[in-house]
Structures are given as C-alpha cells and as structure tokens.
C-alpha cells in the first residue's frame, strides 16, 4: 500500500513539475511576446460570414440569391483623433452611434451597401487608419419581388432575438416571413472566423499561423416546387387588381406550384435601413402588404363550398343525383325570411344545381341534411384546421361547429345559419389554401396531401460542421446521398367516400366549366373542372373565387384564385384561372423569363 501511495504521489509531483515548466516557458521564456500581444491586443478575431443558402424554383432558377455587400465599419475603442479627422473629410456618419459604444472592441457599421467603386475609393483613402475597416459580407438578393409572400425576407436581428440566441452576431440578418423564416436554421449556415495580427495602427499584418482558422459553412440550398413561369404570368394577370391571391397545388403530392398574394413588398427593401416615410407608407397601406392572403386571408367560400354540401348529402343518403326540391323562382322563403338566389332557375337536378350554382336548391339541401353533417364533412376535409404547409403564420379559418354556435348564440342559434352555410356564406371562413386542398381531395378521390413548398435541400459545399448538422436533425428524416440531404416525401391521409358520389361531383364540376358559371375557363384541349364563388363582403364589393382542377381524368393541377372587391367570381377570377391553365398545359406560347425582369 505504501508503495502505491508513493507511486501516485510521485506521479503528481511529475505533473506539477511539468506544469511548472510550462508556466515558466509561457511566463518567462515567451512571456515578453505574450505581454506584447496582450498589451496591444493586436490579435483580431474576424468573423467570416457564412453565405445564406440560396433558393431555387422547380426548374433550378435562383429566386433568392446572395451577392457581396461592401460596408464601412469603425472599431470605437481604436479610433483616435487623427482617424476621425481624416474620416470626416471623406464620409459623413452618425457620430452618436460611436459615442454610445465608446469602449466596444467589435466593429460598428456606419455605411452599408456601398457600390464597388465607392468601396475601392474608400479603401484607397482610408487604408492604414486605425480602427477603420472595410468589409465585404455576403448579403441576400431577391430578383423577383412578387415572390415576397412565398419567400419572405431577411431583416436585421432585433435585440430580443439576439438575447435569446447569441450564436448570432448583433448585426446579423434573420429570416422574417415565409420560407426564410420557416427554414432559418437550414438557410443560415455557420460562420467561421480567422485570427489576424494587426500592427499598432490597426493594419492587418497577416494570419496567425499558431491558431487554426475555421472556415464558414454556407447555408443549405433549397429547391422549391414553385414554377417561376407561372408566377410571372400570375403577376401580370393580377395587374388590373389591387388585392387578391392565387395558389396552385399538384394534387398528386401536395407540391405548391403557385403561391401568390397581392399586394406584396419588395423584399430587398428590408436589407438596408430605409427612411421612416417609407415605413409609414407601408404601415398605412390598406391592402396590408405583409398579409399572406394564401394562408392568412379568411373569407366565406361562397358557392365553391356547394360541392362539399352535396357530398355530405350524398354520403348520408338524404340526397341523390336525381333529387329535386321546390323550384327556384329567385329565392326561398324560410320562416319569415326570404333567402335569395341570383336568378330564377326553375326546377333543377343536383348536377345542374351545381353547374348553375343555384342557391335555392342548396338551401333545401342544407335543411334536409342539417348543420352537423355539413360540419362533419368540412372537418374531414381539413376546414377549420391548419393545412400544415411549410410557412409560418398560417390561419385556421372559422368553421361554425355546433360548439362554436352554442358559444356565440348561447345555445339558441337561428336555423337560418344552416341555409347560409349550405351556400358557403355567413359564419364560415376559409383560406385559399384550405379551399385548394378540398379540391385536391376531390381530384384525388379522397386523398389529401399536405401542401409543401420545399422539394429538396442540398449541401452547398463539402464542409459540414457538426453542430450545424445537429440543428438540422429535426428537418432531416431522409438522407439520400451526399449532396441532397433531404427530399420531401409526400404524406397523404384519406377521407373515405363512395367513389360513385365523387364521380358525380367530378362531372358536376366539369359541367360548371362546360355550360355553367365557369364557362370562361373552358378549354377545348383539356377537360377543366371547377367552381366559381362569391364571398359576400359586408364592407364593400364582394370577393370573387374560382377553384378548379385539370385534366379531369388524371388531375395534375388544382388552382384557386381569389380576387378581392370585384364582385362575381365568374367574371373576374375565372379568366385568370383560364390563362394559368393554358400556360400550364402549354396551350399558349411560353413567355420567356428574363432573370432580371423585375426588382433590379
């Protein structure tokens, strides 16, 4: 035992000697060098910004790019009067910014977004001044402003956000809305750094060989399902209108082909400080340009809801394709109220009632099957719930469930509610994407795929930082190969419905386009099915809806168009849809997309 104690003790003595020798080396032998370094604090740690991942459309065209940005920064702690005097000759800047942080060692940006010429000029005149730094950093660039609601934008990080996650720098950008926000972790990448030695005047002498540098890891690239060609067309089709939205889905997998909302803002605006007037103008815009109408606008679906009511009736057996009710003479008297139809249709069967969008018929369907059946079916088709699209801030819509009505009317809600619900008016509100998803379900005979914008995520470079990968793990159920780290696998759920009933609705929707209210969407080459609608608006002109899909036999696109404050759906929304279908099926020549057409 004594021997073992001695062995341990002598080992400890050995280590103590080793540490003492090391201390002696550091503090006496190399001490002068380190004291010098410490005195001048002449080692500077320079953050090496990781470029944000780029975003591409389905055909590989860049929709969110990265470009270099030149800026001039000052290190307050190192400024001297000579530098300030020289600086004042060349540029003017906000002196408060520096005076507030007089003791800071980290650079403070005083001029951003310099042109390359200006940057070179400043470099020549200011180089060698202590505490002055010209920097090149990668910065976002959005070539197509009309993608604002899909992509979102990046903006300077706020103080609170920085407090919460200090892996950001105080002057970093962070994704604010849309894809940029939802995929922030993936797009962001990981900054590297390098250490440089600077002389007494702040000039960089060179890299420090003693310490490894850490290369930045660029953010991953995202490939979206959006089709830029179609979006260009949509933007031009919406030119006459102030407000509206358009969404197209591939019903076979939920891929989002179009996501457009108007009005929009130029996302490049948020990259630099802009004058307060501009901000005032944006804030006071009655069209609410930050509002993504595809996922956040909640309007009554109007007649586009009728197929769901019909399905509920057919499934529950109270309604048959041959069912006829009291003929339509321009309206329907219920209790002491008179519920209007838009014209006198006479006596109709189910298919014609959908094709001609007869309200009188559906008032009576509603009475026949009751509110609960309709609500049940609507819930099956995801109304009143988020669709689960990969965008932040999605709204749920409003569904007048019995529970909701009990709360609102204290258990005695008027019977008239079911009449209004049967024609998609009144208490119900849906988002365009919910409506599109319902028509996807019809097109796919009951199958509902979650809408999704990102097809795949790819590594931009060959350096993979471990913690960066850890942060991705939530998003990466599938790793295919080295470059593609994630491929979206569509997930479906199914609403059990009789195929016969679905076929019936399907052909009714075809009749809508062939000889009903949607005639303007008729194409001789492709069988289009769809439904128009008008969302009643108590505050002004009604909103126009069109939802449809094509081709009938094997639908590959579901389209939902909403135009606000223009009146009837058949007149305004359908022509837009028709043009989109024509372009989608290559029935009109493809306008070529010039990459810098807008936003430059």
């Amino acid at each position, binding site marked *: *035992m*004594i021997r*073992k*104690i001695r*062995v*341990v*003790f002598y080992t*400890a*003595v050995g*280590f*103590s000697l*080793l*540490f*003492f020798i*090391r*201390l*002696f080396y*550091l*503090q*006496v032998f*190399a*001490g002068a*060098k*380190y*004291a010098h*370094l*410490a*005195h001048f*604090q002449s*080692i500077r*740690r320079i953050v090496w910004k990781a470029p944000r991942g780029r975003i591409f459309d389905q055909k590989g065209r860049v929709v969110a790019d990265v470009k270099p940005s030149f800026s001039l920064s000052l290190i307050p702690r190192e400024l001297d009067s000579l530098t300030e005097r020289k600086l004042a000759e060349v540029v003017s800047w906000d002196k408060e910014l520096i005076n507030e942080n007089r003791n800071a*060692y980290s650079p403070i940006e005083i001029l951003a977004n310099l042109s390359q010429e200006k940057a070179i000029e400043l470099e020549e005149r200011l180089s060698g001044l202590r505490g002055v730094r010209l920097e090149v950093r990668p910065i976002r660039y959005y070539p197509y402003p009309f993608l604002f609601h899909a992509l979102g934008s990046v903006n300077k990080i706020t103080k609170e956000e920085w407090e919460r996650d200090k*892996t950001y720098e105080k002057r970093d950008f962070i994704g604010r809305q849309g894809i940029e926000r939802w995929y922030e972790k993936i797009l962001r990448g990981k900054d590297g*750094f390098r*250490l440089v030695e600077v002389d007494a005047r702040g000039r960089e002498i060179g890299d*420090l060989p*003693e*310490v*490894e540098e*850490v290369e930045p890891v660029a953010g991953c690239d995202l490939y979206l399902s959006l089709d830029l060609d179609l979006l260009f067309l949509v933007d031009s089709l919406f030119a006459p209108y102030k407000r509206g939205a358009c969404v197209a889905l591939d019903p076979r997998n939920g891929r989002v082909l179009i996501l457009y909302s108007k009005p929009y803002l130029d996302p490049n605006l948020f990259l630099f400080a802009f004058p307060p007037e501009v901000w005032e103008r944006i804030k006071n815009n009655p069209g609410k340009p930050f509002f993504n109408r595809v996922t956040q606008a909640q309007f009554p679906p109007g007649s586009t809801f009728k197929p769901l009511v019909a399905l509920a009736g057919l499934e529950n057996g109270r309604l048959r394709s041959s069912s006829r009710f009291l003929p339509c003479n321009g309206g329907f008297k219920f209790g002491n109220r008179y519920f209007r139809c838009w014209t006198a249709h006479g006596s109709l069967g189910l298919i014609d009632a959908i094709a001609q969008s007869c309200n009188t018929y559906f008032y009576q369907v509603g009475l026949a099957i009751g509110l609960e059946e309709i609500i049940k079916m609507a819930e099956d088709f995801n109304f009143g719930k988020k669709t689960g699209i990969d965008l932040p801030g999605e709204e749920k819509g409003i569904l007048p469930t019995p529970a909701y009505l009990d709360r609102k009317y204290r258990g005695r809600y008027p019977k008239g509610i079911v009449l209004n619900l049967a024609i998609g008016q009144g208490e119900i509100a849906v988002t365009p994407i919910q409506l599109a998803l319902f028509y996807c379900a019809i097109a796919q005979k009951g199958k509902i795929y979650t809408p999704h914008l990102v097809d795949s995520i790819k590594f931009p470079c*060959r*350096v*993979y*930082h*471990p*913690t960066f*990968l*850890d*942060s991705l793990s939530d998003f990466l159920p599938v790793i295919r190969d*080295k470059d593609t780290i994630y491929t979206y696998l569509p997930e479906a759920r199914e609403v059990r419905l009789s195929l016969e009933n679905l076929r019936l609705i399907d052909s009714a929707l075809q009749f809508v386009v062939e000889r009903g209210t949607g005639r303007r969407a008729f194409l001789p080459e492709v069988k289009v099915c769809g439904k128009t609608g008008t969302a009643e608006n108590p505050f002004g002109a009604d909103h126009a809806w069109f939802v449809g899909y094509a081709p009938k036999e094997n639908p590959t696109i579901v389209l939902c168009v909403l135009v606000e404050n223009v009146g009837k759906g058949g007149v305004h929304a359908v022509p837009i849809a028709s043009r989109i279908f024509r372009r989608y099926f290559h029935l009109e020549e493809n306008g070529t997309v010039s990459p810098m057409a807008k936003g430059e």
Partner: protein
Amino acid sequence: MKRVKFRTVLIPAIVLTGIGLSSIYSAGGWVYFIRQLLWFLLSLLFFYLAYRAEKRILITFSPFLYFLAIFFLLSVLVLNHGPVKRWLNFGPVSIQPAEFAKVFAILFLARILAQKKKFSFSLSSLALPSLLIFLPAFLIFLQPDLGSALSFLAIFAFLLYFKGLRGYEIVLLFSPLFSCLFGLSLTSWVIYFFALALFLYFKASITQFLSGLGINSFFGLLTPVLFNNLKDYQKTRLLSFLSSSLDYKGTGWSAFQSKVAIGSGLFFGKGYLKGKMARLEFIPNRHTDFIFTTIGEEFGLLGGAILIGIFLYFLYNLLRLIRGLRDETGQLVIAGGVGLFFYHIVVNLGMVLGILPVTGLTLPFISYGGSSLLANFLLLGLMLNFALKED
C-alpha cells in the same frame, strides 16, 4: 493525531476556495462572487453532513444513491433539448448531475470492490465494476461531455490500482481504448504501440504481452477501417466531437487567448484586479473552466507555482489518509476521490496551459460552479469520514 489530519485536508480546500472566490470576483464581478459564496456556505453544510453520517448507512444506501444519479443523468438527456444537455433546472438554480454522479459512483464502486475478497485480473472480477463505471460514463458522453465521461475511467483506474491490480494490468485494461484514439493517425499509433510493447515486455508475462499486443493491433487497425467508411461530414463530426463540443466559437481561440493571458502575467503578475485579458471578454468561460488564466495573469509565475504547490500538498494529505487505514471500503473511497481530484486538476491545468485539448472540466474548488463545489466538498466529507472515524 486525528485532529491534525482533519485540518491538513480541510484547510487547503478552504484556502483553495478562497483563492477561487477572489479570482471569480476579478474575472466575473460581484454577481458571480456572491453566488459562489452562497454555494460555498451550502457546501460546508454538505461537508458536515457527509462527515457526520454513519458509514454503515452510507454503504447501505450507496446503490440507491448511484441509481438516483443515473436517473438524473437520464432526465438530463430527456428534459433538455438542443445540442448540449448538461443541466437540470430547478427554478433559479441549475444543477449538473454529472458532478454528483462521480461522487456516488466512487462510493458504490468502493462498496462493490471491497465486498470481493478474491480479486484478480480476470473477467469475473472486472465485469460488474466495469459495467457500473461504463453506464454513467456513457450517459455523460451522450450529453456530450467527453471530459467528464473520461473522469470515470480515471476513478476506475485508481480504484483498481488500490484494490490490488498491478500498474501494468491497468495499462493493459485501458490499452484498447488508447489504441482506438491513437489509431486515428498512423504515426501516433506506431509510437504508442512501441511504447506499449516496451512497457509490457518488461512488466507483463509473455501471454499478457502477446495478447495485449494482439488486441491493441486489432483495435488500432479497426479504427482506420471504420473511420474510412464514414462519410466526410461524419468524419468531421466525429473529430470535432472528440476535440471539443463545448465552445462553438472554436477551441483554438480559447486556447490561444488563454496562453496570451497567462504568458503576459510574467514573473510577478499584473496585480490583483489588473489582469486586462481575463477581465475584458477575450476569454470565454473565464470564471469557470478557464479561471486559472486570471490567476496566471494577475499573480504571474509566482502565484501559479504557489497554487500548483497547494494542490500538490492537498493531494499529498489525501493520500496520507489511506496509510494505516484498515477498512478496505474506506481505502477505496479515498483512492477514488484522489483519482477524481487528480484527474480534474491535471486535465484542467493541461487544457489552460495549452498542453491538452480543450474540454469542459472545472478546476476543483477554484472554478465557478455550484454543482462542482458542492460535489467536491461532499466527496471530501465522505473521504474524511471513512478515514478518521474508524469503528
């Protein structure tokens, strides 16, 4: 006689804590100083309780304490989200269960080993203790905290050594692990292999010599084969995991700044509260793991040497507790405790002085951190309890 021994251990520990408190004030300011002072008062209570407790009861409850620690280590992994999972939050304070797991593992292992009368370098003797050491080490490795996970191996080595294994047997036992680590680079592995061969040639029997070299060759060859089959990003991940998982700003930066701060202290230091490097935020974790930089900068070579001297004196007195102690459990508790302190001191100083890679380990009694201080005094109380209160 006994009172003298009691003081020779406790006083250095309290002096070290005092040095720690003053350095924490210098590096971190009032807030950390006050908090650490409160932790210290609580630690003295822990020390007293651990010292006064009945040994018999401690030994009876040691499995319970051990599995309680395992339970907390599991909760840490389950309750925390994010890449680093180390703390359990109880309102304003957060506890690091790993620190207590080390103490309870020592206690339980000491009991298990002491119960074995016939102990030899064989599978039947080593299987259960290895499993009991491996379990918490693995859970802590998952946090991830490689430094703390390896501390269990240090404890294990000390326990086995004082239980009766020979030095070369312990080297043989741990050699496959080292073979894996060194196997990442061919040169380092060849040097390691020859050193091992030479050592075993003089120390071990011919069978052990041959089987030891065989096993080491196997693991040494296995590592590059496995490693080369990894994808690029997995390799990078593994390597940076082994080098450090703590400091996202890069380990090179901390290690370098630490050297600058200490080096600039020169012979006499810059004087208390005058250390510029450690006080301005150049050094990450400057009041916790890198606290020695403050001491080195402000008190120079003189201060650093005195501190190392106090640590040596402290370990010397702890080792003396074993001498003449008849109770084997007591001997092993003290041996494990010495192993833990020894490992922490050597790895922390090695890291701060730029000899060893950066891992997140505290310097006992000096570094800021409630869990660490509490666990250290608790352990000290247990060690003195077993050493001085013989039945």
